């Protein structure tokens, strides 16, 4: 599949994800999430915070506005948007 290949084609940076200790979803999904460390925690370009449960959602590719992401710990579906300060945030879509 080709989303990773598509990402390369669109000049997106891709990431090799590793587990970070998040353990609230089945093992195969764990590397796609990490705990938010609060103030001082800096999000990478492939990360966005779930507004519902405050877990950090991670992607294998650099995120851009319009990307859809899922938060499995709280079952939310989101779209990535650009916030007023230029950072990326997630908006829940129903």
């Amino acid at each position: 599949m080709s989303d990773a290949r598509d990402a390369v084609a669109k000049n997106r940076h891709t990431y090799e994800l590793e587990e970070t200790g998040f353990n609230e979803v089945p093992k195969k999904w764990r590397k796609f999430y990490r705990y938010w460390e609060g103030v001082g925690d800096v999000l990478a370009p492939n990360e966005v915070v779930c507004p519902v449960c405050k877990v950090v959602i991670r992607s294998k590719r650099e995120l851009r506005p319009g990307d859809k992401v899922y938060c499995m710990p709280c079952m939310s579906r989101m779209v990535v948007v650009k916030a007023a300060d230029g950072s990326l945030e997630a908006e829940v879509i129903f």
Partner: protein
Amino acid sequence: MVIADDDDFDPHLLEEDDFVEEVQSFEFWFGAVEGYLVDRPYGRSPDTPDPELDDTRRDRLITTLCNYCVGETAALEGASGLVRLAPNHHAKVFMATQVVDEARHLEVFLRRLTDLGVVDTATEIQKRANPALLDFKSSLLELVDAGEWDAAVFAQNVILESMEFTVFRSHAENADPVTAEVLQGVISDERRHFGFGENDLGRRMADDPSRRPRLQEVKEQLDRIVLSVFEGALDDLDVPVADRPRLGQEYLETVERLGLT
């Protein structure tokens, strides 16, 4: 649905129906709780230190735990009633996982009360229960008995679970090590519960906006009780008044996302 487990595997690429089926399944629950409950009988690691608490702190903790038991009993009875009302089989299976989560929470809090020397937990809970929380429980079970899925899920998975999530997290920051560890396991479960509530109701209202007025009505009916419950819980935890608006913020954000303000 066949979910590949190879280098190309990416959950964010799932179709929405496949995503919902996956996260509401027993298999998902099974893999999730394995991560944070294994080797923690009754929610705590046997190695976690359990220093003796002074009398005042112990008494305050007993009151708090008694009220957690009331909340978890409401959630257990509410969730079990909701299995029958669930509009589809995935939601029924999810609700069944929530039933066992709530029963586990009740069990770990009862166990903690016993650790603290409470012999007759039922009497102690009755004595220390916040009347507003009992009112909330009655209101929730009335909605379940009336067969109102949307309203009952809103009361249980949005209001009650958001409130618990906030209170438990605040408590875990200052609790003794054992109580904090027990609370962490409960918090991990709560993410699924309030997430399910918000997303299920959000989707149902997006499909049929005529559902919204009834939920606004329920919210207005319950707001006063919720405020009293919340205040009572934060008083028991000795949370400074100045910090309370920040703690209530998450619930307000949830109802705003659902368009119920």
